């Protein structure tokens, strides 16, 4: 009976549920009573949009899977059938294909926001690492999904990337054969890729829950990087950030709708509307835009194994970021040298992406090599050194003090 008296709800149905499963108070606790810094900018709505995109991808993906046939003889044609004969099939497929690109766009903004404001620092290292695991699964899912339409880029992209595994000494060939179910990309590989492409998003979904759990344990970072100290510094998540997330997502959907309805193949390659042909190699094989910087790093090293290791390292180094960056001050707003380095790093990533899109020849390779070198210099030399010696400037007493000033502007 003691428990029942804690039940704060009046409505009999709500009381009934709450008594058996305290889910009502759980949501009240995680939304209404969850206190959040009041100075979060729109960049902090990225996580919510990313979660929304994951749901959009899962729903459209399940609908596509109802009509798609994972077999080399039928895959391309079944996608065309979806485009032409399934009711609103073109809409479902364009939502899914453009959704992947915009999902990456949002996730990259989410990651760069974490880097700029030092959101990965203590006590949020694990939050960052879980996010990186989500990013890894997302990359795998995107790669597998791009193979499914079985166009020229699908086939040759899969061939080039899976071929990297042969660079592993001793066991490379066996690993490749195990992954593909054959020594080459063919029917068994396509079937496996389809199964995994369907599985991984649910794994991502699970990780997102753990990510949010970790987030709610210590709360959000904020643009000042100064932890909230008094009640004045925070506001309840609901309604203030639910309404802000809502605004962000509607604005985002305007952009999303523009691509779907008016430029649905903007992110795609024309080559992928040609059915896969193992006898004809495309003039140059490029991955989707979101992989281009990593592709440039892969190609920068003239050795297959070396390139593979460099590409993996470029992602793994991000896992270690909380320990690479030694500064106690989170936000780059108060670390002028690091802030400058951040923007140079962004420029470097853009150059890498540009080089990755170009054919692997002449100056493009050399530019890619310099940009790759800088990528690692940034994380392994510049960030550890600068974060140790840089004197922060203008760090506010509290986030409220800073917010007050920005309100007056």
């Amino acid at each position, binding site marked *: 009976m003691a428990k029942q008296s804690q039940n704060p709800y009046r409505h009999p149905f709500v009381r009934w549920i709450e008594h058996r499963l305290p889910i009502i108070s759980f949501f009240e606790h995680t939304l209404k009573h969850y206190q959040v810094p009041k100075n979060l900018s729109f960049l902090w709505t990225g996580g919510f949009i990313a979660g929304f995109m994951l749901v959009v991808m899962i729903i459209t993906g399940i609908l596509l899977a109802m009509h798609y046939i994972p077999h080399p003889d039928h895959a391309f044609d079944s996608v065309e059938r979806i485009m032409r004969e399934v009711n609103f099939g073109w809409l479902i497929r364009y939502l899914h294909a453009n959704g992947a690109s915009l999902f990456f766009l949002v996730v990259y903004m989410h990651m760069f926001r974490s880097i700029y404001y030092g959101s990965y620092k203590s006590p949020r290292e694990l939050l960052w690492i879980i996010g990186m695991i989500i990013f890894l699964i997302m990359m795998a899912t995107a790669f597998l999904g791009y193979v499914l339409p079985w166009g020229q880029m699908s086939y040759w992209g899969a061939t080039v990337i899976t071929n990297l595994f042969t660079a592993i000494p001793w066991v490379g060939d066996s690993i490749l054969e195990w992954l593909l179910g054959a020594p080459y990309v063919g029917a068994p590989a396509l079937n496996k890729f389809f199964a995994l492409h369907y599985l991984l998003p649910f794994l991502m979904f699970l990780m997102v829950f753990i990510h949010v759990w970790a987030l709610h344990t210590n709360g959000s970072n904020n643009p000042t990087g100064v932890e909230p100290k008094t009640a004045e510094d925070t506001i309840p998540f609901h309604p203030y950030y639910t309404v802000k997330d*809502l605004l962000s997502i509607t604005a985002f959907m305007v952009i999303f709708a523009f691509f779907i309805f008016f430029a649905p193949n903007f992110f795609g390659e024309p*080559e992928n509307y040609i059915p896969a042909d193992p006898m004809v190699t495309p003039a140059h094989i490029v991955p989707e835009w979101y992989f281009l910087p990593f592709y440039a790093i892969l190609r920068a090293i003239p050795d297959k194994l070396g390139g593979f290791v460099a590409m993996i390292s470029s992602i793994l180094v991000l896992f270690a970021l909380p320990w690479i960056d030694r500064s106690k001050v989170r936000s780059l707003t108060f670390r002028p040298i690091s802030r400058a380095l951040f923007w140079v790093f962004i420029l470097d990533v853009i150059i890498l992406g540009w080089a990755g899109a170009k054919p692997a020849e002449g100056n493009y390779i050399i530019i890619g090599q310099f940009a790759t070198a800088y990528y690692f210099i940034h994380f392994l030399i510049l960030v550890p050194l600068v974060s140790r010696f840089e004197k922060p400037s203008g760090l506010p007493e509290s986030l409220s003090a800073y917010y007050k000033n920005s309100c007056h502007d």
Partner: protein
Amino acid sequence: MLGTFDRAAAQRGYQVYRQVCASCHGLKHVRYQYLQKIGFSKAQVKAIAAEYQVRDGPDDEGEMYDRPGKPSDTFVGPYKNKKAAQAANNGSYPPDLSLITKARAGGADYLYALLTGYQELPPANVDLVPGKYYNPYFPGGQIAMAPPLLEGVVTYDDGTVATPKQMAHDVTTFLAWASEPELEQRRRLGIQWLIFLSIFTIVCYLLKRSYWKIIKKKSSNS
């Protein structure tokens, strides 16, 4: 933004496809009945489909047989398979045209340029392979397809003068439609969604502002 396909041009373009392109190029993702969407009547479509022989079966005796095409069939291609196509064309494979404007950089503009861009005499520095034709718009400049749209190759049913440029324009319109038959519906729906989402965004903005007014006020007073 609200692009529509010119119905008359698309129908003439079908005629060009039927009388010129179809002797080498398939259109396997298009069903005859779709032609109604560019303005052909039901009876016309039935007649068009019946011009083709479709391999069907097996029948009750276990034999395959040929029957006249039905509107629900997809376009019957000119060759039995890819090998047969290559054997008939000196090893080159005339691609299926169902997706041609989506499968080439430049889309419809590329197709029109290619069809009208043949040059009888290649530049002096180009060593033309025997059996190929010079066309600067084709990657590499040497194409196995002979210039297809010559003066007088088609006589239009609607009386339009079939100049090579007119034919190129018409068949490009037809093939752009064949590649993206959903285009008109897509753009119409797109306008509706953009209007709806824009208004919804403004409403959300006002909602957000009214909620946050008190927070901003409190913060600047304290």
